[in-house]
């Protein structure tokens, strides 16, 4: 096997493109592989794609940049400097993380350079062999071609090419010559997925395999005092009961037996630190408003004076905790023995997962081989390490036997790192053309603080942008403005949930703007456009397009109504119009029109799929999503108490992908934030009732 760059390997006839980002379904492997293949002039389908081993050279710089407290639509010299500094830190911390819709943005240059470097090395090798200057050679379909038509396939040049020095700044193809990028390519993972051949981490099978499940303390921050293994061991097929931290694992000859045995146990749970119920959690969040703000961002003018001039419009909004509910509950497979650990896990952060698993079983990271498998959904959940650590510990209990760990759905719903519940207190002053003053006070748990503490052991200095993203950084010219965040440590684990802070703050801001529009008698689209035009022509264009395809200018049919929302997140300004209608069975989702400016669509088919996916994820959560607590434990255990939109309930979706040029934006998340406020605003338009709490199904009957 010959390696030309960290991203290109040639083994005999087989060319492999290494894509060091995890496939959660978002098509990232397809797009990243296309970046390399484009520069190398590889034929689509003529090479294989692999995730590659965990490595620091694959660290994700864009993820850290996205964490900076600047509005993305205003890039200044300062933000660029800070971005550069953060990138370095990220490399040091070795974060090879798939998340924050950053994969494509991070890889856009890097992967093309890798492909171009590999191509240059192959051409140099061919030039030597043919005794011709490299400028006279061209590349086509996986071969170097000489002026006389002689073809030297890459495979035949690989060994010689590997001896060439990789060029530092290889020349990149101009985009007008692209053959793969900018087209909807068939995904290389598609056929396997359709035929059920894809092996997720829970589908690894090996000789002598055992199957396991876990039952962790149902109370957050709780412990395990002890457990009588007897009732589990009495079930035929149970091999071992293992205490692992704040819970118990059961190893058996099949998953069903392990799950039954785990239920049969009566563990003695120790005291917990989390709240007793949902009311207590919201009470503690509300109490944060009485303290000093943790972070203030976007301050302009004198908001207090402006709000004091007349009685302001005031409202309080609330959103619940949300589970990720990936279709595949947490799984991981591990084999321990002879001082080594082999781990198969669908992880969004392989370097850290390997390090954690090593620590969990007392090994060095270099003694751990991690195979990153495809994931049955990620949405941020698989950026955590609990499940891979557990698999490692369970495997250590039965050395030499591979252990396949599968969580039950109930375990998955009740032991997530949730999207935090949040409360927003908003005040605004309506002027002739919209909000003259706006103050957003937002309280809730800090994803940044908790995730950083879990991942790197400390909270990085600097403002907590995630608490306020979506609230302070939108392209609206409002003279007197301020967003304040109040961090509340509640004791329910929180983590990244598709679009993170935008997922709640967009609901607050975009619903409240709708309230102001209604109070001032303004059209919600016109009002936003007026606020936007001076700030960002890109944003205004996106909103205009969404309104246009939704037919905003023409009144909806009787019994129908429309709502609009906008959000600029992950580099992609996005606008949505949701149309609903009244039916005998309840409110029906009729249509969702979404316009998104992605900068450059590297694969329009995948971008479209992600827009639809993100919007439906947001709608499903807005209508049904919630995690509640009683007796210190999560009440939802399965898809009956936690519902999802079904096929027959989905709206017709129309998308419009705008490409204003420049770098490609992240597309996995930006369609999620506007869905909830667009729907809530449509409900207001239809019924005159303002919905300030999610999920909506408590107050509205949906068909």
């Amino acid at each position, binding site marked *: 096997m010959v390696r030309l760059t960290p991203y290109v390997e040639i083994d005999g006839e087989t060319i492999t493109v290494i894509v060091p980002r995890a496939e959660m379904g978002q098509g990232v492997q397809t797009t990243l592989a296309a970046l390399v293949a484009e520069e190398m002039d590889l034929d689509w389908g003529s090479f294989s794609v692999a995730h590659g081993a965990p490595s620091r050279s694959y660290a994700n710089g864009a993820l850290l940049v996205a964490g900076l407290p600047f509005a993305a639509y205003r890039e200044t010299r300062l933000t660029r400097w800070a971005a550069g500094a953060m990138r370095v830190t990220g490399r040091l911390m070795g974060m090879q993380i798939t998340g924050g819709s950053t994969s494509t943005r991070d890889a856009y240059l890097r992967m093309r350079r890798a492909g171009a470097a590999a191509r240059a090395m192959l051409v140099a090798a061919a030039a030597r062999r043919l005794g011709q200057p490299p400028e006279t050679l061209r590349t086509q379909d996986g071969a170097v071609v000489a002026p006389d038509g002689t073809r030297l396939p890459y495979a035949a040049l690989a060994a010689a090419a590997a001896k060439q020095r990789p060029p530092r700044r290889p020349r990149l193809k101009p985009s007008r010559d692209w053959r793969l990028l900018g087209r909807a390519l068939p995904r290389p993972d*598609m056929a396997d997925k359709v*035929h059920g051949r894809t092996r997720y981490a829970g589908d690894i099978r090996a000789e002598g395999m055992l199957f396991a499940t876990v039952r962790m303390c149902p109370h957050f921050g709780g412990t395990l005092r002890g457990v009588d293994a007897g009732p589990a061991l009495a079930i035929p097929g149970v091999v071992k009961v293992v205490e692992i931290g704040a819970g118990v694992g059961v190893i058996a000859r099949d*998953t069903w037996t392990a799950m039954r045995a785990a239920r049969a146990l009566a563990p003695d749970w120790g005291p917990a630190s989390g709240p007793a119920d949902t009311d207590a959690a919201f009470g503690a969040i509300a109490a944060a408003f009485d303290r000093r703000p943790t972070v203030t961002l976007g301050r302009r003018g004198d908001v207090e004076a402006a709000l004091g001039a007349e009685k302001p419009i005031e409202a309080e909004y609330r959103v619940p905790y949300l589970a990720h509910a990936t*279709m595949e509950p947490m799984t991981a497979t591990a084999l321990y023995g002879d001082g080594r650990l082999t781990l198969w896990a669908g992880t969004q952060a392989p370097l850290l997962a390997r390090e954690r698993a090593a620590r969990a079983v007392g090994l060095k990271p270099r003694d751990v081989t991690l195979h990153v498998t495809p994931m049955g959904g990620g949405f941020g959940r698989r950026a955590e390490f609990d499940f891979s650590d557990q698999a490692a510990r369970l495997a250590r209990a039965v050395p030499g036997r591979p252990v396949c760990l599968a969580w039950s759905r109930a375990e998955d719903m009740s032991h997530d790192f949730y999207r935090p519940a949040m409360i927003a207190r908003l005040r605004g002053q309506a002027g002739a053309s919209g909000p003259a003053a706006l103050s957003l006070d937002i309280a809730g748990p800090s994803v940044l603080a908790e995730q950083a503490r879990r991942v790197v052991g400390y909270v990085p200095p600097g403002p907590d942008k995630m608490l306020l993203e979506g609230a302070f950084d939108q392209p609206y010219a409002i003279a007197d403005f301020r967003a304040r965040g109040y961090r509340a440590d509640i004791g329910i684990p929180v983590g990244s949930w598709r679009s993170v802070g935008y997922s709640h703050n967009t609901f607050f801001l975009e619903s409240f703007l709708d309230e102001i529009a209604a109070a001032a008698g303004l059209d919600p689209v016109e009002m936003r456009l007026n606020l936007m035009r001076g700030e960002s022509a890109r944003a205004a264009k996106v909103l205009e397009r969404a309104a246009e395809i939704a037919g905003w200018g023409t009144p909806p049919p009787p019994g129908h109504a429309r709502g609009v929302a906008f959000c600029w997140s992950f580099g992609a300004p996005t606008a949505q119009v949701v149309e609903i209608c009244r039916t005998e069975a309840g409110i029906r989702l009729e249509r969702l029109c979404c316009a998104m400016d992605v900068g450059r669509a590297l694969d329009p088919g995948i971008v479209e799929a992600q827009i639809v996916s993100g919007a439906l994820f947001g709608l499903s959560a807005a209508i049904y999503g919630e995690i509640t607590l009683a007796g210190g434990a999560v009440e939802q255990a*399965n898809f009956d108490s936690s519902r999802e939109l079904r096929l027959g309930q989905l709206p017709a979706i129309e998308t419009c992908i705008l490409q204003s040029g420049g770098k490609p934006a992240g597309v996995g998340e930006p369609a999620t934030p506007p869905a909830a406020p667009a729907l809530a605003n449509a409900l207001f338009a239809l019924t005159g009732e303002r919905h300030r709490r999610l999920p909506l199904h408590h107050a509205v009957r949906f068909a």
Partner: protein
Amino acid sequence: MQITVNGTRHRVDADPAMPLLWVLRDVLGLTGTKYGCGTGLCGACTVHVAGRAVAACQLPVGKVSAEVTTIEGLAAGPVQDAWIAHQVAQCGYCQPGHVMAAAALLARTDSPTDAEIDAAMAGHICRCGTGPRIRAAIHHAARQLREG
């Protein structure tokens, strides 16, 4: 106990109460059939028993009296082709269940209405939001079937 899966007869040494899902996955190593809920709520475990779509997590293996077909054994045909043509799958985890349900539906009718598709898919969840492409793929496959 004996069951026939994808045309092969297997002797299975398992508790007859064990759901077919886990016999397929853990005993026979047929991992294309997925666990999503274990309670008949998500459709990820859908297989065919005597040609009908059934939730394998709800069927004790001891009660299986007819031939079982899983995604691995489903004859390649217009359904999978349509799924590939429409590039339906994202994470893919729900897709074997959806494909099996669609194949069972299209075996009953080659011109399903949207309402019939909704009904056939009502027991299925896709967290990746592939629903619109699933519908398009079913119509596409139906067209292929009608046109032969």
